[in-house]
């Protein structure tokens, strides 16, 4: 049985006062806090190793242990998402870089198209927009419904036999929508199209089985899953990773660079190393492995069930006040553990809402995010104009949050809403 109060102690910042106030951290969709175990894993690298990793690079003891531990971390990630092999796991800086790798190296032809949605994070959309512009291919957009959900039939209209890839967000960082990924994968595969899923907001909160879903590529940001900043993961079916071109080139991605009669002939390594140019974030990789261990020790289903009950209370509590518009589906079962909302009255800038909770409440700082969450197209679609400074406030939860924190927030939100009368 999980003792949640003990888990909370692994995040010391939550036990500290900041400017004399207790912290309630509701910004995990942007950046999760990191448990002690993650820092310790990183500290081990920096304190006791500090050497180069990478197969065959530095074969001395420190280099060998670095290579061994980072490859063990890769195996942990592979098991975490049920990849067939650790060779399907590419280390990146974040989900954004993963998307850019796929888009940039995708063998896309001019008469082919790419499908994405209006609800994508810019990182799931713009790399493919750029690629299509460069190649002269068509980028097709599936509009999310106004409540942030999707009809699989809308994908059937957009995907055809010329669709190369579909970029699709599994859990939206704006509306919290949990999308019908498996249905979209099946539709795409009927047409021979690949699917890349943006798992930045899903994988940290629920069990992800890439084999069961049969998704072709997935990208994750480890910093949203208790891990260190600057570490991400690109998953790809091995035979598809082989078909992608090169991204960054230089050291660590080559088997040999032959110099023959004044000509350079590089021979590149197979996946995953062909995508990991230069010396890597070894300390971060160890931290990522520790983060996965931490999540596995609790259990992803346990995390999902707890967060779902919390996000239900959060969602229903905000709706009960009847002073705020909530983005996304109103059924908590269709949502990830975040709620984006905005005052029904257009009286104030959304950043004022966040700053109010950061600085104006006695005893607490409730830390949330305001803005457009890098999902401008969907907001334009539903009548929020980011170009005019309009946006939302987002409260997002994770394993260290408590029911008491949600109740404190809802009480303060009620106080706040009186200013809107």
């Amino acid at each position, binding site marked *: 049985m999980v003792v949640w109060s003990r888990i909370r102690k692994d995040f010391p910042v939550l036990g500290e006062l900041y400017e004399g106030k207790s912290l309630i951290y509701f910004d995990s969709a942007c950046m999760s806090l990191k448990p002690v175990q993650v820092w310790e894993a990183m500290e081990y690298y920096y304190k006791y190793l500090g050497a180069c990793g990478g197969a065959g690079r530095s074969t001395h003891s420190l280099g060998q242990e670095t290579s061994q531990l980072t490859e063990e971390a890769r195996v942990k990630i592979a098991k975490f998402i049920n990849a067939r092999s650790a060779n399907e796991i590419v280390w990146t800086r974040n989900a954004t870089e993963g998307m850019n790798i796929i888009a940039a190296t995708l063998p896309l032809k001019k008469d082919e198209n790419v499908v994405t949605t209006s609800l994508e994070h810019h990182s799931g959309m713009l790399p493919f927009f750029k690629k299509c512009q460069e190649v002269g291919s068509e980028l097709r957009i599936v509009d999310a419904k106004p409540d942030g959900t999707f009809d699989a039939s809308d994908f059937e209209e957009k995907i055809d036999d010329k669709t190369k890839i579909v970029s699709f967000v599994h859990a939206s960082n704006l509306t919290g929508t949990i999308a019908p990924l498996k249905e979209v994968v099946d539709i795409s595969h009927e047409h021979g199209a690949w699917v890349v899923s943006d798992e930045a907001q899903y994988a940290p909160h629920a069990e992800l089985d890439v084999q069961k879903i049969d998704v072709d590529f997935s990208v994750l940001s480890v910093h949203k899953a208790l891990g260190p900043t600057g570490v991400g993961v690109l998953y790809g079916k091995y035979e598809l990773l082989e078909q992608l071109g090169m991204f960054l080139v230089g050291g660590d991605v080559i088997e040999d660079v032959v110099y023959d009669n004044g000509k350079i002939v590089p021979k590149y390594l197979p996946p995953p190393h062909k995508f990991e140019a230069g010396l890597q974030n070894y300390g971060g990789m160890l931290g990522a492995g520790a983060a996965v261990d931490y999540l596995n020790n609790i259990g992803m289903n346990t995390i999902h069930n707890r967060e779902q009950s919390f996000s239900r209370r959060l969602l229903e509590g905000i709706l009960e006040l009847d002073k705020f518009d909530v983005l996304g589906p109103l059924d908590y079962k269709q949502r990830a553990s975040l709620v984006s909302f905005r005052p029904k009255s257009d*009286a*104030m*800038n*959304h*950043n*004022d*809402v*966040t*700053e*109010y909770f950061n600085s*104006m409440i006695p005893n607490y700082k409730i830390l949330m995010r*305001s*803005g457009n969450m890098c999902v401008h197209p969907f907001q334009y679609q539903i009548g929020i104009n980011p170009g005019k*400074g309009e*946006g939302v406030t987002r409260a997002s939860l994770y394993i260290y949050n408590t029911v008491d924190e949600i109740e404190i927030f809802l009480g303060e939100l009620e106080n706040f809403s009186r*200013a*809107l*009368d």
Partner: protein
Amino acid sequence: MSEFEERNIECVLTILKEKSPATTKEIMAMRDLFPELCAGCSSGGDVILAGKQLVEQGVVERKWTSEGFAWKLVKFQSSD
């Protein structure tokens, strides 16, 4: 403080010289009057961060109102 932050502070200060007090939302709406100066001040968050710096400097006061934060110039800052 970065050059970027300094510029945003200058943007907010310049707007407050035109209209004080002004809410975050009003300041956002007035950025278009100073497009070059306020080019980097792209969100209400930028306005708030700049405003808080000005509060710390004692140049501006901040008050919570039914329309959000109102920022009031309390000390004129010479440009030289």
